Each structure stands twice: as C-alpha cells, then as structure tokens.
C-alpha cells in the first residue's frame, strides 16, 4: 500500500500543472508525477503565444476563456514567466487574405475580443522589418507571450511532485516505475503527446515542429507575427507544412517557428524542414538573414483528429480523466483545461460547456480550411 490523494496527475507539463493548481485551489489533495524537469516536454519546446483562435466554436470558447484567465492573473505572474502583452498581428499577404482579416475582425467583434484592421501602411509602420507589399493585418492587442516552463513551475509552486515515471494508470491511481502505488479518487493523464502510452487507444498523435531563436535584437519585432496563410497550411492533416510565426521575447530575442509534420518520431532536427521554415520567415522578413540564430530544436504537439483537446473522464472508467491533445495551443488552453478538470471533479458548473472536449464525444465533422 502507498499514500492516497484526491487527485493524482501524470505529467508535469503546463497542462498537468494547471490541472494541479486548480484542483488544489478547489481544496483537493493533489500529487503530480513527472520523471523529467517540470515543463520539460512540449511546454519547453513550444512558443508560448497566448492567443484567441477561431477554427471552430469550441476552439473559440476554450481559447477565449483561457486568454481571459491569463489576463486576469497577468499582474501576479513572477518575472521569470516573462509575460509580454505584445498582441498578435495576423499578417495578410494579398487581397484574399485581407478578406480573411475582415471576416476575422467581424467574428472577434461579435464575441467581444478587441481587434483592429491595419492597412498596408500602418502594418509597415508597426513592423518595419516586414517586407513591403503586404496587404495589411488584423491586430489583436490583448494576446500575449509567456515563457511556458516557468509558468508551469509557478503553477506547481505548492504542489507535491514525484520524480518518477508512471507505468500504469487507472481510476484507482498511479503505479510508479519504482513500484509505489499512489491511490487516488481521480487520476488524470496529462502526459501530452505520450498520453497513449499510458491510456492505449486514445486518438492522440505526435505532430512535430521545428523552432529557432536568435540572439538579442531588442525591437526587431514588437508583436507576435503570424501569417494568415497559416490557416491553410496548419489545417492540412496530411502534408508536411511550414508557416511564418515570429515572436518577440522579453530578452530581445526573436523566436521563430514553425513546421508541422506527422510520422516523424525522432526529436532530431531535419535540415530540410528547418531550412523550409526559415525560408518562409525570410519571405516575410528578408532582414532576418542578418540576425544570428543561437539555437534550433524541435517539439511534439499532441494532435487529435478533430483538433480539440481531450478533457474529462473516459467513458469506460469515470475516475480516469484525460487532459491531453492540445496540439499547438496548450500553453494558451492550459488554464481553461485546469479549470474544467476541477469543475468536473468537484461538480461545479463548468466555466464553459465541457461537452465538446469530453473524451467520449462524437467526433465533430471537421472541414478542411
């Protein structure tokens, strides 16, 4: 026999950390199981953009709620979380993408998310290193950037973390590699892209991404810059793709992304993908070639078929919860995920309707954009 907890969580990434923080705030006794460094998985690899996304109503609800939760706590985050209220610029390369800017603007107006259309000239003034000839952009001023591993560490500040791998998971608790059993009222699988190893059969696949970061060039970019063509490329569920994404960091560094690949399971850099990604960056920001990159790496997103995370109990074992499948948005959506998990466990009215994210849901028909 071992110890017992109200909630035992496998995985100390930002999602497990957010679940732990919310459960503890709800008065529950919580333990987190993480063999590696806290926030050392996708949470360390990703880009830390806190962003409202509008792929589907359920994605809007989750990202919107999460961004509100980030905004509400921005003044209490420690300095090492590097919260930067820089806003997003959705960059339109041509008139077709500018039409998308206006569509997005109308949608954001409708849900009370501040947004402003910039014409070509205002865009050039806002970001002088973008190439000339771009059509315009949508500015979403309340989006931001954080440094995710430190955010995860902060969320776990008062929570017991066991430095062991979970080898077996059920509604009864977690079996650790050293044989210890942590009994729990509720067990949560928050192991990101590794979740199917502990809960076989769930539809989560690894989607690899390449990243690069420059030396310090303060002011080189001042907003998160995302190409609108991203929507076309990110939606394709088969082909490998790259999209221009550049983020300012508090240090003055510029974080560059990103690629999307299924079927590549090694963390090694694939130079053809990295080169393709950097060429895409250069198409938007030619002067990037003058900057020195100091590090390149890869990370794995946990992707689901309908592009929504899996949050809540699995139908076959109602005491076993999933909190995974956040793909490229888990930094943003960690906070609403943690809140939803705690709401469901203690039986509160969920902060947003939980149905679209429940593991037993009928897969929503997804249209390729």
């Amino acid at each position, binding site marked *: 026999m071992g110890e017992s907890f109200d909630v035992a969580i496998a995985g100390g990434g930002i999602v497990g950390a957010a679940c732990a923080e919310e459960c503890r705030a709800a008065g529950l006794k919580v333990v987190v199981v993480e063999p590696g460094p806290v926030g050392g998985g996708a949470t360390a690899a990703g880009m830390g953009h806190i962003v409202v996304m509008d792929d589907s109503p359920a994605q809007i609800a989750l990202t919107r709620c999460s961004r509100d939760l980030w905004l509400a706590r921005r003044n209490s985050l420690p300095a090492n979380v590097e919260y930067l209220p820089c806003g997003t610029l959705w960059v339109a390369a041509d008139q077709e993408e500018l039409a998308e800017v206006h569509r997005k603007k109308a949608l954001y107006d409708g849900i009370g998310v501040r947004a402003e259309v910039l014409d070509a000239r205002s865009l050039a003034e806002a970001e002088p290193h973008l190439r000339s000839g771009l059509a315009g952009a949508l500015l979403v001023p309340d989006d931001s950037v954080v440094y995710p591993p430190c955010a995860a560490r902060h969320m776990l500040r008062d929570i017991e973390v066991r430095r062991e791998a979970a080898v077996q998971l059920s509604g009864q608790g977690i079996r650790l590699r050293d044989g210890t059993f942590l009994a729990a009222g509720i067990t949560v699988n928050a192991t990101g892209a590794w979740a199917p190893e502990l809960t076989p059969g769930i539809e989560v696949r690894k989607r690899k991404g390449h990243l690069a970061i420059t*030396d*310090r*060039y303060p002011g080189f970019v001042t907003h998160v810059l995302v190409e609108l063509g991203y929507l076309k490329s990110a939606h394709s569920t088969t082909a490998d793709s790259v999209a221009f994404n550049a983020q300012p960091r508090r*240090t003055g560094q510029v974080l560059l992304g990103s690629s999307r690949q299924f079927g590549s399971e090694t963390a090694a850099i694939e130079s053809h993908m990295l080169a393709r990604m950097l060429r895409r960056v250069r198409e938007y920001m030619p002067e990037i070639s*003058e*900057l*020195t990159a100091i590090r390149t790496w890869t990370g794995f997103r946990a992707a689901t078929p309908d592009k929504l995370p899996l949050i809540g109990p699995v139908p076959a074992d109602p005491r076993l919860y999933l909190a995974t499948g956040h793909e490229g948005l888990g930094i943003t959506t960690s906070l609403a995920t943690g809140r939803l998990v705690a709401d469901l466990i203690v039986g509160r009215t969920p902060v947003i309707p939980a149905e679209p994210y429940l593991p037993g849901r009928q897969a929503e028909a997804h249209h390729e954009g």
Partner: protein
Amino acid sequence: MKVSVNGREVTVAAGSMVSTAVAAAGVSLYRRSVTGEPRGPVCGMGICFECRVRIDGREHCRSCQIPCVDGMEVRTDV
C-alpha cells in the same frame, strides 16, 4: 590603419583583430549579459561569444574573429 571605437579613432597594425582595437581604445566593457553584467573577451578563438560588439551597424559580431578594416566603426555595450 584607423578604426573608430565608440566614436574615438584608434590606429592599429594591419591584420589586427577588432578586439585588439577595442582594447587599444582603452575600452574593457564589450557587451552586457542578459542580466546587465559587464562582459569582455575570454577565449580569443571564437568559442565563448563574450567579445561581441557592433561593427558597422551589425550587432553581435565576435570581435576576436574579425580583422580590422580601415574606416570601420565599432560600438561596444550596445
């Protein structure tokens, strides 16, 4: 040949590295760390990156690896 270090002209022998010109100008603060600490050359062979300066407007150049060119403009601690 002559190069300018932080606006001050110094004369160095042809083939001198920029780090030499900076030292000849009496400057020991080449750059600052991310937390604001002073930094200067350590390895002299392009490995440590501590000797970075701005050369002709280009940031983060390793001064120990770049030969002086007549008329070059060098800025430290930028």
